[in-house]
């Protein structure tokens, strides 16, 4: 971010911001929480460069923010007479937090350790441990890859550069890079993918977010639409061809945003007043780059166009940026955003808890867009720690956050969880000159069959083909094969285990909990029917197969 350097030098960062309150109000249906009224930044923060911090917003600690969320939701539940679900038990919490933070279920030993831990703050400690694991960076990189490649996740061009994007994102999540910086880096990245070395291997591989631009066919209008949607929660894309039918966006607004991006295939239009002008296709209209709130970039700074755009986007006074991020993260953990669909912060689509969203956004910005701060606060809330158990579908009004919804896993979560449960080892290929080693081969194939990343995870979406893959496909077949399965061998061959303990282990490996009495009785009876070694082991394989195929295993609940 260009302004960081200037701040370090002691000079105030250039102010290109400050949307007129009127323009913002127009866009925000009355909730204009980031008004232009600003004062000096809290100097204890070393992250953001904009001098503006929202007025009268004391910074809350993680615990204070959690308490604030709990109060706000409790008030709403009381006001509306909402029935609140009971709390989740430890096993439920462990599994959920693991899937949400590191993208896979816990191992048997993690389950045992956590369930037997008597520490009163063990849930908080768990979150801390999970945030420090490499798998956290990987899971958030996967999540953001799916988001950045959205509808084009299978686009062949961007697929080629997906490993570079994954690594690029992983490196940033691993150090908890401030979110404003992460987004600036994406917006300002070279559109062309870097040339990979002639004999590539994982060491010399150049991370790059170029797949994002390729997924958008490197076209300025597609990049602009994706940028606005993903980072600002603004669906301005419809205005590409016509004025937005449901809100105030005009075609001119859209192309003024698109004008911040260069497009090698489109030259400067005749009659354009500057090198930055863009003509709207099939029309005579020529527009200059203008921010979505109607303000003009400050060309005096001589920053590049996209740099000016990213400075405006990630500013603390931007009315969309922090809100969109907070809404998305809330959706990540609670299965639904305050604004739903999550990418549509439009006045026609108001949030379920407007003040709470505003406060979270304010705190997120105030804490230098620190993702881990928000994650710690959200995972400690009562709402996050409610059970997903429900006896009737009528109980599932997702917008009250009075019960944890059941969610489908992403393809990445399901694959990683199967690997975790079974000890499946991916075949690793040696790097070959001229060929990128495809370390994620099995994962990529699995992902292709299970990918539906843009369908809300709280919707029902399992295909026959997916069920067949899990029942009869190579992955689970290998995992339950007597010769090849690591977990199964460990459980079946350990001489000191009773059948009860064997069943317990298989349950913990797959469902991250111990079986209840009825389950234990049924499966112990099943494996005890024939105690010849071959049959006994086969029976354990059958139980393992049933557990791996169960809804409880495949869903995040």
């Amino acid at each position, binding site marked *: 971010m260009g302004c960081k350097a200037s701040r370090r030098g002691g000079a105030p960062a250039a102010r290109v911001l400050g949307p007129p309150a009127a323009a913002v109000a127009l866009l925000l249906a009355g909730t204009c929480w980031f008004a232009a009224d600003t004062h000096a930044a809290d100097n204890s923060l070393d992250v953001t460069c904009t001098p503006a911090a929202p007025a009268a917003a004391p910074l809350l600690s993680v615990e204070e923010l959690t308490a604030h969320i709990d109060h706000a939701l409790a008030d709403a539940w009381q006001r509306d007479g909402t029935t609140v679900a009971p709390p989740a038990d430890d096993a439920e919490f462990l599994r959920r937090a693991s899937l949400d933070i590191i993208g896979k279920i816990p191992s048997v030993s993690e389950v045992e350790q956590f369930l037997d831990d008597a520490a009163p703050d063990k849930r908080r400690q768990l979150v801390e441990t999970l945030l420090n694991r490499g798998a956290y960076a990987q899971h958030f990189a996967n999540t953001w890859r799916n988001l950045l490649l*959205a*509808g*084009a996740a*299978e*686009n*062949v061009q961007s697929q080629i550069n997906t490993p570079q994007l994954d690594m690029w994102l992983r490196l940033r999540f691993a150090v908890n890079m401030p979110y404003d910086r992460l987004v600036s880096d994406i917006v300002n990245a070279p559109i062309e993918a870097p040339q990979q070395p002639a004999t590539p291997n994982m060491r010399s591989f150049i991370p790059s977010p170029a797949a994002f631009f390729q*997924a*958008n066919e490197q076209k300025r209008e597609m990049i602009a*639409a*994706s940028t606005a*949607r993903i980072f600002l929660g603004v669906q301005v*894309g*419809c205005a590409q061809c016509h004025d937005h039918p*449901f809100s105030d966006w005009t075609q001119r607004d859209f192309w003024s945003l698109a004008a911040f991006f260069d497009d090698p295939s489109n030259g400067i239009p005749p009659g354009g007043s500057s090198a930055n002008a863009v003509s709207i296709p099939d029309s005579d209209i020529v527009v200059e780059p203008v921010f979505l709130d109607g303000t003009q970039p400050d060309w005096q700074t001589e920053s590049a166009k996209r740099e000016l755009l990213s400075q405006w986007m990630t500013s603390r006074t931007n009315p969309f940026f922090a809100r969109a991020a907070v809404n998305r993260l809330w959706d990540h953990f609670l299965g639904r955003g305050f604004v*739903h*669909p999550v*990418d*549509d912060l439009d006045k026609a689509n108001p949030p379920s808890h407007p003040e709470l969203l505003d406060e979270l956004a304010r705190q997120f910005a105030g804490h230098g867009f620190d993702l881990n701060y928000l994650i710690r606060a959200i995972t400690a809330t009562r709402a996050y720690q409610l059970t*997903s158990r*429900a*006896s009737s*579908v009528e*109980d*599932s009004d997702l917008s009250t956050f009075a019960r944890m*919804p*059941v969610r*489908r896993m992403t393809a990445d979560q399901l694959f990683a969880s199967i690997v975790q449960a079974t000890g499946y080892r991916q075949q690793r290929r040696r790097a070959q000159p001229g060929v990128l080693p495809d370390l994620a081969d099995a994962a990529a*194939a699995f992902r*292709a069959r299970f990918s*539906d990343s*843009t*369908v*809300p*995870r*709280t*919707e*029902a*979406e*399992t295909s*026959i*083909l*997916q*069920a*067949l*893959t899990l*029942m*009869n*496909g190579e992955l689970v*077949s290998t995992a339950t*094969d007597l010769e090849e399965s690591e977990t199964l061998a460990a459980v079946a061959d350990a001489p000191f285990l009773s059948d009860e303990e064997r069943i317990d282990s298989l349950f913990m490996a797959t469902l991250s909990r111990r079986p209840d009495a009825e*389950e234990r009785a*049924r*499966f112990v009876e*099943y494996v005890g029917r024939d105690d010849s070694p071959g049959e006994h082991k086969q029976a354990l394989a*059958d139980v393992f197969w*049933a557990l791996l195929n*169960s*809804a*409880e295993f495949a*869903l995040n609940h």
Partner: protein
Amino acid sequence: MRHRKNRSSSLELSRRDLLRLSTAGLVTSATLPWLESAADAAQQPAARRSCILLWMNGGPSQMDTFDLKPGHENGGSFQEIATSVPGIKISEHLPKVAAMAEHLAIIRSMSTKEGDHGRATHLLRNGYLPQPPVRYPTLGSLVAHELGDPLAELPNFVSIAPFRNFNPAAYGPGFLGSQYAPLIVGQDNNAGAEEGAPEDDLTVADLAPPEGVGSDTVGERIDMLAWLNNRFVSDHAAPPAVGYQTAYERAIKLMRSKAAKVFDLDEEPAEVREAYGRNRFGQGCLLARRLVERGVPFVEVTLGGVNSIGWDTHTGNFETVKDLSGTLDPAWATLMSELDARGLLESTTIVWMGEFGRTPKINQNTGRDHYPAAWTTVLGGGGIRGGQVVGRTSADGTTVEDRKISVPDLLATVCTALGIDPMKQNVSNVGRPIRIVDTDAVPIDEVLL
């Protein structure tokens, strides 16, 4: 089966459907024997409508199939032959199709703007240009959503030997969700297929348990699974749990069903298999007939996908088109005559199309390049008034001179022929309602019965 009408919100209703199913599912999955193909839908063919899409991957040359220009320098070497309809002439390499022209409406005035394989494939197959983040469903998913029976033993959308590399999203269910994803049959080039016995590979992946797992074991496993799932779903009553259980029930039903025998082409007499052509497309058309007989509402068969880009004849156009025509002709003609003999042609709409046409001008490699401005598609069978040509191109083939037809017009015609309202709205993944076909579509009236 035809009870699903005019639904305003697909997501909501698909959820409701699932909940309705779950009530039955919770009770029956473990305890009752699976119903084996009891509802043999073939007994009442008139009540049902189906669509078979013959997808010509790569963009077939209109000038060398259905809109020849003999005598013109753009015309190339092929001759025209008469068809069963006086006045209509097509390529000499499609004689069997020519004999069935009374069932076909040849649309010679397709005019589109997209000349890129990936984008055009999406345009023709999904009805819209790609515009992330909206995930437009492919035609088969849309039809399965409208006409499919959620309780059917067989999937409602089967895609045979697809080539998805140009644009995978053009083969996906988009915002309608995985329940409307195609069951893919046969080698899928996208997964790195290799050359093999091409006509014998039309199988469903992972339909059979792995080797060494006997049917008793499968039975025991499925019993345990059903027991676990019933327990879980009964105290996690939520759409993903119910949907998961339903998908498993349908998959298991398919595994155990006699209906899965539909994929066993060995049940067909050798001479029938010969008549379609002993190749992937020919046998795929035979499989399509078998699926439609059993009530599957949408089947697509791709010609020109595996190991080549079929109709993308930038070089050596004439040999390739002649070759592909030799595969297309017997398969398509036999498909229509067999459907006709079973009384199914009047309820089965057949669509022949690729993503665009090819340049009238022959290039220096005796090839033809991408050409969306003036090209041909063909409709036939159910709901279609056959025996006619729609539109006209100029003498050199470069422009449409009469009755320009857009992609939405074409797809709206197909929908109408199938009894589907093309203006029906579905709720998309971005929360906006999106019509099955774009609003400016005008169905081709003269083609509709």
